[in-house]
C-alpha cells in the first residue's frame, strides 16, 4: 500500500464527513450546549416560565445569599458528598476483591450484585421507602431483636442518612465493575512477593492493592463526588417533593427543579442556582485531581 493511497483514503469529499457528524452535532448543540449557554445567560435575568426576562445583573446571586432554602440546599448537597464518597471509594473495592477470584458461581454473584444499578432509581427509592417505613421490614426486624422502631423517614437527619445509604447501595455494583477492570491489571507477582515477605491479607491490601488501584480510586472519588453533589431522585422520592420536614432535606438540584418549573417558575433564579451547581462541580473535580497530584510528588 503506497502512501498516496493512504492519504487518498483519508482525504474525502468535503461534504460527507459533515453529513456523518451532523445528527450528533445537531442534538448536542440544540439540547446540551445551547441550554448550557442559555442557563449562564438566564442566571443574570428575571426570566419566568411565560415571561421574557430582562437583565438584572447580580440580583439573583445577591438574593441567593439571603435565601434560607438555598443554604439548606447547599448544606445538604455538601453533606451528601461528605457522607457518600468515602463509602463509594472503599466499599466497591472490597466488593471487587471479593468477586475477583474465579470460583464456581461467581458470574452469578457478579451480576446479582449489579442488580441495584440496573433497577430504576424510582424503583429503588420506592423499595427503600417501604423497607424503612415506620412499620416496614427494617423496623420490624429491629423490633424483633429488641431495639425498637426508628423513624428513618420522619427525622430530618435520619432521612438524609437513609437517602445516602440508598445512594451507596445503588452505586456499589457500578463502581465494583470499574475496580474489577483495574484489579485485572495488578501483577500477581507483587502479591506473591509480599506474601513471601510475610505480609498478611490486610497488609498486602494496604501495600500492594491500594497503591496499584490508586488512580482508579481517584477516578471513583471524582465521579462519585460530582454525582453526590447533584443528588435529586433519592431524596425527592424518600423525602417527598417538598423535601422532608419543613423542607430541611432539600438538595440544590431539588431546589432548581422546584423553583424553575411550573407556570410561575422562576427560570432566571433557578438558573442562578444551576450556575452555583456548575461552579461547585468543577471545583470538586479540580480538588480531587489536585489532591491526586500532590500525593504522587
Amino acid at each position, binding site marked *: 500500500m503506497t502512501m498516496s493511497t493512504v492519504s487518498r483514503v483519508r482525504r474525502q469529499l468535503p461534504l460527507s464527513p459533515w453529513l456523518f457528524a451532523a445528527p450528533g452535532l445537531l442534538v448536542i448543540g440544540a439540547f446540551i450546549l445551547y441550554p448550557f449557554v442559555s442557563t449562564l445567560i438566564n442566571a443574570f435575568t428575571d426570566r419566568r416560565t411565560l415571561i421574557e426576562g430582562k437583565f438584572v445583573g447580580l440580583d439573583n446571586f445577591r438574593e441567593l445569599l439571603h435565601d434560607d432554602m438555598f443554604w439548606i440546599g447547599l448544606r445538604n448537597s455538601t453533606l451528601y458528598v461528605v457522607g457518600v464518597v468515602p463509602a463509594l471509594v472503599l466499599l466497591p473495592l472490597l466488593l471487587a476483591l471479593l468477586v475477583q477470584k*474465579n470460583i464456581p458461581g461467581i458470574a452469578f454473584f457478579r451480576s446479582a450484585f449489579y442488580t441495584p444499578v440496573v433497577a430504576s432509581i424510582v424503583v429503588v427509592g420506592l*423499595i427503600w421507602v417501604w423497607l424503612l417505613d415506620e412499620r416496614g421490614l427494617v423496623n420490624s426486624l429491629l423490633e424483633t431483636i429488641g431495639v425498637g422502631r426508628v423513624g428513618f423517614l420522619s427525622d430530618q437527619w435520619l432521612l438524609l442518612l437513609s437517602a445516602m445509604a440508598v445512594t451507596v447501595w445503588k452505586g456499589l455494583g457500578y463502581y465494583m465493575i470499574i475496580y474489577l477492570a483495574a484489579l485485572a491489571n495488578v501483577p500477581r507477582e507483587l502479591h506473591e512477593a509480599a506474601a513471601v515477605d510475610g505480609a498478611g491479607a490486610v497488609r498486602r491490601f494496604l501495600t500492594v492493592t491500594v497503591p496499584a488501584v490508586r488512580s482508579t480510586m481517584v477516578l471513583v472519588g471524582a465521579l462519585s463526588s460530582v454525582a453526590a453533589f447533584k443528588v435529586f431522585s433519592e431524596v425527592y422520592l424518600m423525602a417527598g417533593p417538598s423535601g422532608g420536614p419543613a423542607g430541611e432535606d432539600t438538595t440544590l438540584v431539588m431546589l432548581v427543579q422546584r423553583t424553575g418549573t411550573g407556570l410561575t417558575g422562576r427560570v432566571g433564579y433557578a438558573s442562578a442556582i444551576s450556575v452555583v451547581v456548575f461552579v461547585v462541580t468543577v471545583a470538586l473535580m479540580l480538588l480531587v485531581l489536585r489532591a491526586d497530584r500532590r500525593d504522587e510528588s
Partner: protein
Amino acid sequence: MSVLEKVRPARVVSEPRVTDEHGRRVRVWELALRYALLLAVLALTVGPFLWQLSTSLKGPTEDIYTSPPRFLPSDPTFHNYERVSETIPVWDYALNSLKVATANVVTNCVGSALAGYALARLRYRGRRAATLAFILAMLVPVEGIIIAQFTTMRELGLNNTLVGVVLPGCIGAMNVLLMRNAFLNLPYEIEEAAFVDGANVWQRFVRIALPSVKGTLAVVAIFAFMGAWDDFLWPLIVLSDPSKFTLTIGLNYLHGTFANDERLVAAGTVIAVAPLIALFACLQRYFFRGVGEGAVKG
C-alpha cells in the same frame, strides 16, 4: 504453600478441586469464608427486591406489617397486579417507556456510530472542533441545564410529548466518543483495500467498519435502553399529561396517590423492574466483557 500441606498430601487431594484464575488451588476455609461473604452481600443487594416481590403477592387479608416479618406470602395471589392496572394505566405507561427506550437505542446506535466514524476515520477541516464539541457536551452537568432544556423544548412545541422525552439524550456525547475510540482501534489496511476496490465512504462504513465494532455498539445499546427506561428527572419535568407518563413517572404518581397500600406500589415496581432484570440477565456476559475491555483499554 505451607509445610503442613506438603506433609499431608492425602488431605489436600480430597479437597474439592477449585482453582483461581491462575490455576492455583483455593483452600477450603478460605472458600467457605468467601461464599459466606458472597451470600451475605447477595442478601443485602437482592433481598430488598425479593421482599418487594413477596409484598406484591400478599393478599388483602394478609397482614403485611407483622413482627417478626414473614417473607413468604401465606396465600400468594396476582390480585394486586390486576388492581394496579385498574388504578393507573400501568400497561400504557410500560408501552410509553418501551417506545422511549427503543427510540433511544436506535437513535444512539445510528447517530453515535455515524458521528464516531466521522471523528475517527475521516479527514476534514473542523474535525478537532467537532471532537471538542462532543467532549464539552459530555462535561456539561445535565442536572444544571434541565430548566433551559425545558424552555428549549417548549419553544419547539414539543413539551409534554414522548418525542420531547427522547430528544435531549437521543445521541449521547459519551456514546459518540465511545464509538470514536472503537473505530480508532481498527487497522486502516482493510479500508484501504476496499477503497482501492472502489468502495465509497458509506460502503466502507456499513460493510467494513461497522461490523468490527459490534461489541461497543452492544454496550451503547444496553446503556441507551437502561438509561431511557430508568430516567426520572427529565420525564418528570417534561411530561405533565398523565396519559403520556412513562413507567417511572407513573410509579411516582401511584406512590403519591396510593401510598397507603404498599401491595399496589410493590406490584407496580415489580412490573417496572422485571423486564430490565430479565434483559440484563440475558446480556450480562456481553455487558461485562464489553465494559471490562473498554476500561482496560482506557
